[in-house]
Structure formats: C-alpha cells, structure tokens
C-alpha cells in the first residue's frame, strides 16, 4: 500500500520511475544498471526458492517420521489369513522395515529425489505411477473448478464492490456466505439430484478421458467442478470486494478523479492491481487444496482422484502411499505459494517497491 498520503501525484509503477531517474543520472554507468537488474531478478527468484528448501526438507522428514511412528506394517495388508509371526517377520525384512530409522529415511529420501516414491503396500504398484495415473482426473477437476471459481468469484466480487451497499451487493454477500458454508457432499448430491436425475442433462458420476470426446469429458466434470468451486468462488468474491472497497478509499483515487482519468482506467490500472493482493494469495492456497482435499466430492461422483487415493490409503494403513501423497502436497503448496509471490511482486507495484527498498 502507498505510504505517501500527502502526495497527490499518481502512484506510477516504481520500476519505470527508478529506471528513468537512473538513465538521466547515470548515463555513464550502463554496466552498473545491468548488474543491479540482474541482482534484483536473482533475488526475486532465489529468495522464494531458498524458502522452499527448508520447508521441503522438514515436511518430508516429518512425513517419514509419522509413517514409522504409526507402527503399521505391510504384513496386515498382504498376509490376511497367513499372518503367522514368521511370515510377518519375513515381510518386514522384505520391505526393509527392520533397518534403523535413519537408514530407512535416507534411502527413502534419496529415492524421492529421483522421483521414486516407493511401492504401495496394498498392491505393490509404484506410488509415483499410481499418482501419475490419477493426475489427469484430479488436474482436470481441480483446474476446471479453479477456473469456474476464479471467474465467478471475480465477477461477483467486482459487482459487489462497484455497487456497494446496494441490494445487489447485499444479495451477493448473502449468496457467497451461503455457498461457503454448504458441505460438499450436500452440494454434490443436490447437483446430481437436480441436473442428472431430474433434468437428465449431465451424467451423475464417472470420468471419460478427453481423447474419447470433448463433450464426454466436460459433461462428466461439470458437476463435480461446480461443487468444488463453491468455496473458491465465495472466498474470491469476498476478498476482492473488501480489497476493492478499501482501495477505492485511497487518496490516489481521489487524485486520479481530479485529474480527469476515466473510471475504467482508474479501475483496471490502479485500483484492481492494489486490491487483488489478498485474493491472489488465497488462490495460491486454494489450488493444492482443490487437488487433494476433494475427497467427498470424488466419492460422490465416483472419480479416482488424489483425495480418494489419500483417504483410502490412510484407512488401509498403506504408509508409502500416504507418504507419497504428503510429499506431493508439500511440493505443490510450496511451489504454488512461490508462484503467487512472484506474481504478486509483478502485479502490485508497491509490493515490488517494498521488496526493492528492503522493507
């Protein structure tokens, strides 16, 4: 947020100003400018990456520790009726579970860095292969849900902010509050009952890969994506509305109006860029949540996605599968937050300026 409250000039993106000043002042020092730019670019990229590493290391360590502490073993999953103590010991040895903790952890971590997430205790398949097979379904649903959530949330938030305190604003606020509290299974079942069973417009469950037809793929994904998007829509709408209302109250908006700038220019060039911060940050958290947290929606719509995989593996006590999912989640959350930070620095000039000034 801009700090010079008494300056009535427009808040231009600082990069332009700084560059212009530097060009007029230091015409003799072009290499210095280039070096400065490189330093800033590196800092913008390396700082988030530097934050990523410790989080990743700690996250994977705790994940592995929890698996070992759980005391679960593949024996109970694989042996069934043949679970004699000798057979149990044999299975433990086969899976390397009788080695010391650190040896196990380092072996697992080394394999992890090469993309090998171990083998499922339930069916012996490679966990990476299992997750990759489900990626298409989960990414499709989550991607579509994000798209719907962002667009609807954007439209609702902007409308509510522009028409603030009118009946439209109140209606939108009530609507977003309502949809944010509805549990996903109620939403899913209601959508199925209305659109699939009663109206017969869309199928009730299942997944069709995109190479079997675009409409088949889309029609199976629409209902679960809508059900999943409710949370994102309401959060996006709310954050954007609050951000926009606050941004409109800033002095530079009054200044812009006085200078005769059009409403559209004020909105798109100035207000929106400053108001979008909280909403974008929120999105960074939402996508991984959509990917892995959609357990109930996946159950209702019979989709074999990450959420179902994680919950079924946890219920079965299939430790490597759960560890694999956790590692993927850690990576996704951190990467997305990194991307959101980079994006924010780019879009919000004051944020970039603050970083540049070392604030």
């Amino acid at each position, binding site marked *: 947020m801009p700090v010079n409250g008494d300056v009535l000039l427009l808040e231009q993106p600082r990069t332009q100003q700084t560059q212009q000043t530097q060009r007029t002042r230091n015409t003799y020092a072009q290499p210095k400018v280039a070096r400065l730019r490189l330093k800033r670019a590196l800092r913008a990229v390396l700082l988030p990456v530097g934050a990523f590493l410790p989080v990743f290391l700690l996250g994977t360590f705790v994940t592995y520790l929890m698996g070992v502490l759980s*005391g*679960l*073993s593949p*024996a*109970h*999953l*694989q*042996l*069934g*009726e*043949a*679970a*004699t*103590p000798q057979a*149990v010991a*044999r299975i433990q040895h086969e899976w390397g579970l009788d080695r010391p903790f650190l040896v196990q952890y380092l072996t697992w971590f080394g394999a992890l860095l090469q993309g090998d997430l171990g083998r499922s205790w*339930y*069916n*012996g*398949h490679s966990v990476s292969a*299992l997750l990759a*097979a*489900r990626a298409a*379904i989960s990414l499709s649903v989550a991607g579509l849900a994000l798209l719907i959530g962002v667009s609807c949330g954007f439209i609702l938030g902007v409308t509510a902010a522009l028409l603030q305190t009118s009946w439209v604003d109140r209606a939108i606020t009530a609507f977003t509050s309502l949809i944010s509290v509805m549990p996903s299974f109620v939403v899913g*079942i209601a959508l*199925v*009952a209305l659109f*699939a*069973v009663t109206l*017969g417009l869309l*199928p*009730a*469950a*299942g997944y069709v890969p995109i190479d079997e037809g675009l409409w088949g793929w889309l029609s199976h994904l629409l209902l679960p994506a809508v059900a999943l998007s409710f949370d994102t829509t309401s959060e996006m709408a709310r954050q954007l509305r609050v951000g926009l209302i606050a941004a409109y109250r800033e002095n530079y908006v009054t200044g812009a109006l006085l200078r005769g700038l059009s409403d559209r220019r004020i909105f798109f060039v100035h207000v929106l860029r400053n108001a979008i911060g909280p909403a974008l940050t929120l999105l960074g958290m939402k996508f991984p949540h959509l990917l892995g947290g959609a357990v109930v929606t*996946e*159950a*209702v*719509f*019979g*989709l*074999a996605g990450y959420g*179902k*995989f994680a919950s*079924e593996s946890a*219920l*079965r*006590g299939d430790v490597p599968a759960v560890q694999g999912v956790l590692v993927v989640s850690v990576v996704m959350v951190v990467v997305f937050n990194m991307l959101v930070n980079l994006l924010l620095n780019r879009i919000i000039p004051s944020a970039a300026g603050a970083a540049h000034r070392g604030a």
Partner: protein
Amino acid sequence: MSIPSFRLACALLLAVCSAACGSSKAAAPPQVLKWAIAFPANWDPVVQGSGGGFRVLALAYASLTEIDEHGDVRPGLAERWEYNASGDEITFYLRPKLKFSDGTPVNAEAVKLYLERAKTQTNSALDGDLSSIESIRVADELAVVLHLTQVDRQIPLLLGQRVAQITSPTAARDPKALNAWPVGAGPFKVVELVPESHVRLQKNPDYWDADNIHIDEVKLYAGTDAAMVVASLQTGVYDFANISPSQVKAAEQAGLEVVYQPGFNAANLAINVNKPPFDDPAVLEAVRHAIDRQELVDKVTLGYGSVTNQPFPKGYIAYDEASENLWPYDRERARQILSKAGYKPGDIAVDFVLPTSSPAAEIIQSQLAAIGIEAKISVTPKWAEPFFAKKLALSIYGTTGRESPVQTLTAHFGPAGPLNLSAPLVSDELVAALKLARETPLASPDYVENLKAATRAALKSSPTVFTYSLPNLFVKGPRVPKLPAIPGQIHWTGVRLGKP
C-alpha cells in the same frame, strides 16, 4: 458448374452416402457392459484369496470346474474327471485346443504349474485350501493326475472359481507382473488396467464357451460410493453394481431391478475359548443364548437377510435342520447362567476388536451389555494379524463360502482352520464326521446326510456363533437381462445386453 454435371455430382454424393450408411448399419455397435465394483488388490488368484474379489477375476480367468444353479459341479476347463478305485487319485481331462490370452496353450502342464504355485508360492492365499493334494503328475497332453493325501471326493467341487482360476504359466514366471495384470483363459481379456480406477476388458475369442458370450467389452469402475449407486444407474453411467440393503427401496422407486443373487454368505461372532473370559464354559453358554439374530437381520440387513446359526444360509445342501435351535435366544436364561456361575453384571469385560466399524458389532455389543458383559469395541487396520494368529478373544467375521461344503466346514471348524479363532480346538467326533463327508462320493445317496452330520458335529464343538446370512444384492440397469442364478457367482454366459 452446369446443371447436368451438378445433378451428376449430387447423384454420386447420394450414392456414396447411402453406401457408407448401409455399411455402418450392417456392423452392429459393440455391446459394452459398465460395471461398478470394488477392485481386488491382487489380480493373481493365488495371491488374491479373499471374499468377493474372485468375481472380478472370473472375467479374465477360467476355472477347472464350474457349478450350476443347484451348486452341483459342472465342466469348466476340464470336460470330465475320474477318480481311481480307492478315491485318493483323480484325473482331470482338459478340453482340447484352448489357449490363454497370451497364446500359451491350456494343457495339463499349465494346470500342474498353477497348482504347484498355489501350494508353494510364499504369498499364496490358497495353500490351506489345497492340503488334500499331495502331488500332481502330467499323464498326457490334456490329462493331469492329482495324488491326494487322503480320500477326498470333494476335489471337483474344490477346484472351482474360488481356488482354481488357472493362470498362464508364461505370465506366472513373473508373479509380480501377473499380480498387476491378469493373464488367463477366461471369457474376457484385459486391455487396460489402472489400479483402483478403471479396467477395460474385451471378449476373448479363445474362451471355451466363447459362443455363448454376447458381450464385446466390459468396463469396470472402482470407487463408486454406496449412496450414489442408484443415481448413477438411473442416469446410465453404469449398468450393474453392488447395492447395500439401505439403497434397495431407493433403487426400486427409481425403476431399477434389484437382483437377490443367492450365495453362501454367513456372518459370525468369532469367539476364542483359549482366552478369558471365554475359557469359562458358563460365559460361552451365556453368550450363545444372548444373541438375538432376528434383531441383526432387521437392523443390519433391513429384512433382506435371514437368520442362521450355521456357516451357510438355510436351504444350503449342508444346512442341518436338526441343529437349527441348538442355542435359542433367551436373555433371561443367559443372565441366570452367569449369576449361577458367580458373575454379577459388569464383572466381565472383553476387548471386541474389529477391522472396520460395523453396525452389527454395535448391536451385538448392546445385546451382551443386556446380560452384563461389557464388550469394548476397538477398530484397527491391523486387525488381520492378531485375528489370524488367534490372539483375539472376540471379533466378527463374514465369509462368502466355498463351492465345496467340506472346505467351508474345515475352514471354520478344522484344527488348522484359518477362520477358527479357537483353533486348535476340535472334537474327535468332528474329525471323524469331516473325514466321512470328505470320503463320500458326490453322487452317493448318503452324501447329503453325511454333510449334515458333519455340520452337526462342528456346531457342537465350536464356539463360533453364526448370526445371519445376506444374499448378494445387485442392482441392474434396464439394459441388463436376467442373469444365471449361480450361487455366489456372477456369470455373463448367455447374457445379451439391450439397446443403450
């Protein structure tokens, strides 16, 4: 373009179109069955072993023998069999010119390799079922001889879908790969398999009964929620699925047909008399009189099941009517037995360990509480280990039975029976009765009587309390006609699907 050439062009176009349309009408669209069912964890029958998973495997594998609607044995991969005079050797004669889906011939050598693998592979779930087979010999290209450890007339029934789904010996050289991708000689072959997601199978033209298979493709879908089954079938997403008793009314209201497929299912309360408090016979007898089976049928199966105190439903060949009322439900009597033995209400506490949460277990807990026994329920995914190691005092179990009645009795009541929580408890009377039943030829007039006598002896010697039996409930969409009513199994032989 001039008018005559325009007309000529139109005529040519029409001719081409009608030819194309005509040819497409001549080729019928493929018959595809969409089945929502839980997948087995293992696709190798030697490793799979448990409950309903064999129904899915039966799509890809053919078994040595089959059974008909009455549970009588019929030819499968084997077209006939012959015992020797003393009954401790049996020869199976296979159908000629059969192949597995990878091209390997189905011959005596393949059957020998399969049975040996089932007996010796370290993670085999079938070795306990094959204890009667001592060795296997190839007599001829299509004749395989089984040398038995004892006189056992049950072998043709035994080598059915539960135990003898024959795998390709070529594929079995890599058991881990076979476990992830089935290769058999069944009615269909797998063309796509994504674990816990979906499987696509195509008709296998080399199946011995391929002439009677009218379905071209089967698509299996895992992970359908029980509550969404009816909506999915109504909207045509699936054609066939399991259904829980609570959904039956909804299915009927939606105009879908519910199939009550007969089976050998039986649920039980497993008691270990080697552990307290059941090492006191009075406590055991009190518990036997405290279980109200009708309440379980009403509340758990919603009336679609039936009471039974034996490891199979009433009407099964080995069901003994004389033993029907061995320990009738009598709460007062149970309380009196306990007080006479010196127990006050609340004195007895026992750990009731379960694999998953179960309404049946909670009802039993309340029935035990009514006579003063406190059963503490704990659910653990690690249940299988202590259960099959006979470390638990009290638990519940449910089986889908076996094609061979003697096998069912041995598994539940035998001294090494995996489902006998009180092993090695067994009475001499039971051992003798089982031996007699096993040695009676299937066609003998004494067969049924001997089976029932074995059941009688088993029930008297075993503490396991059998509670209820529920037929296999399925719901089918309008495209699926009546299925063959083969108990416990789902057969697609002779089934023609309707229009999509």
